[in-house]
């Protein structure tokens, strides 16, 4: 809290005006509309709109497609978060260990962050292409049942998880590296003098000290996998084959814009909002639990 404040009765409102106008028009009003429409249903001719309580939600949760999509989203998000947080930690630990070429190597790990999810999707779509891609072609020959993300659901899921994780590793790498560099050297030295080897030091000292960062990153990666991967799905699988990569964000888009199911799409939005609120809450728990080194 500031003790010395500036004077002005109207100034603060004028300063806040642009932010609040945009927030109200593009955030709150649409959120309110989604909430409102999720309790409404229009008749088949679109003439009348009725208040239907929780019917849209009942249909939603009774729909096997939606439950399937929720399951797929869970699998996709958890696997993406684990892969990218795990690799990010590994890469950061490796870079922290070396003495020379640090900056150059750091850059090589960071630049994939600049690649848009949609473009990451296209790169991996090509790499995993069963006939023209370097990896896809080899997999096609190595695997007993072949490799084809266009026809096989599990293959398609692998493709989108790899594409989503690859670019997110850089994000995690940056945070882990800055976390590792803020661990005071004397803690590590003390453990070394006590006879703990490098692996043991890593598990007993580094990991516990990094755990707040790790918690935060897992939440951020779940947010990313839930909400920011639309571009990957749209450029690679379009939710297919047979809905096997139809994650919730993609489904709300197709149901709303292609299927024009307003009430259903609004109910889906409300469910997603709940997820977003939950994840934001978890993210802010991190701020409270954050430990200060040194």
């Amino acid at each position: 809290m500031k003790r010395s404040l500036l004077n002005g009765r109207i100034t603060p409102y004028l300063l806040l005006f642009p932010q609040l106008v945009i927030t109200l028009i593009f955030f709150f009003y649409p959120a309110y509309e989604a909430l409102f429409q999720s309790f409404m249903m229009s008749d088949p001719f679109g003439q009348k709109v009725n208040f239907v309580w929780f019917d849209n939600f009942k249909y939603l949760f009774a729909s096997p497609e939606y439950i399937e999509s929720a399951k797929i989203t869970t699998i996709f998000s958890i696997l993406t978060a684990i892969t990218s947080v795990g690799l990010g930690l590994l890469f950061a630990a490796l870079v922290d260990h070396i003495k020379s070429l640090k900056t150059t190597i750091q850059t090589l790990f960071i630049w994939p962050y600049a690649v848009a999810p949609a473009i990451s999707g296209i790169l991996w779509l090509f790499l995993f292409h069963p006939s023209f891609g370097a990896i896809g072609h080899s997999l096609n020959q190595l695997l007993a049942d072949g490799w084809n993300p266009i026809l096989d659901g599990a293959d398609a899921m692998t493709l989108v998880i790899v594409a989503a994780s690859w670019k997110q590793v850089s994000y995690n790498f940056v945070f882990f590296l800055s976390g590792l560099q803020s661990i005071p050297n004397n803690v590590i030295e003390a453990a070394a003098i006590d006879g703990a080897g490098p692996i043991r030091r890593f598990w007993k000292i580094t990991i516990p000290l990094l755990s707040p960062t790790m918690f935060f990153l897992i939440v951020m990666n779940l947010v990313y996998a839930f909400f920011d991967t639309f571009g990957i799905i749209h450029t690679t699988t379009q939710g297919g084959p047979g809905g096997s990569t139809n994650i919730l964000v993609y489904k709300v888009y197709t149901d709303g814009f292609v299927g024009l199911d307003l009430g259903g799409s609004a109910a889906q939005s409300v469910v997603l909002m709940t997820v977003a609120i939950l994840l934001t809450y978890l993210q802010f728990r991190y701020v409270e639990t954050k430990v200060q080194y040194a």
Partner: protein
Amino acid sequence: MIEHNPWLDRFCWLLLTLSIVLMCFPIYYCFVAATLSLSDVTHTPMTLIPGMDLLKNLKDAIGKGGLATQMLNSFIMASGITLGKISISMLSAFAISYFEFPFKKTAFWLIFITLMLPIEVRILPTYEIAANILGPFKKVGELFDYTIYWEYSILNSYSGLILPLTASATATFLFRQFFLSMPDELTDAAKMDGATPMQFFRKILLPLSKTNIAALTVIIFIYGWNQYLWPQLITTTDDMKTAVMGINNLIPKEDELPEWNIAMAGSLITMIPPILVVVFMQKWFVKGLVEESK
């Protein structure tokens, strides 16, 4: 002292090399594919030595999808979002940290809640707002039996691409955090010299915020450039499409010539601006990324 184990070092370097290959291979593969002719790119396994056709493929990619216009659109959108986000959030952070006024808490919470409302959870209603930005006023008018006939659409416009993405809780909190860390003596001195609040903002806070602005610029520019879902929704005409969206049309479909070399050339052009920003402003990028989430 920490013991030195040459075998561990060697093992680290080995793992590190593998990791670098893993992270950089997709971009390298994309580059090589972009330099090959159609017959070379479809010849499996594809060579990993760059060919001679880079310029021709780049030209084809630009010609085929109208990529030049799209790059310009992406640039305008990314710059607009950057400029908008930074100015809007600086002003509101200034209001929240330097003034005491009624409804300050409310304003703070209104901004905070936007964190929980990513565009993905309010797709359809936000689109409706973009189709007629006066929609909310119309609704309010109806409450008072007053019909508003004016309509104003921001579909297919730069303001439509930019405005909804300029509100930002994270940037506002970052600046708030920074302003709160400013010594009170600065405020007192400015007040004693008779500076108005806006003079204080321009002459003292703005110059002191330079590093924060630079760091955020890098992060937001990449965020803006890589937007996919929102431009996808609100642009229907070719002259307003952005580069990341446009690449989707270059992906060869089942029944088309497998012109992956052109798709990769297009991806390469689209990736280059954000990659250059990350590589050349790495210091700011890392700072921005880590601080934005505090």
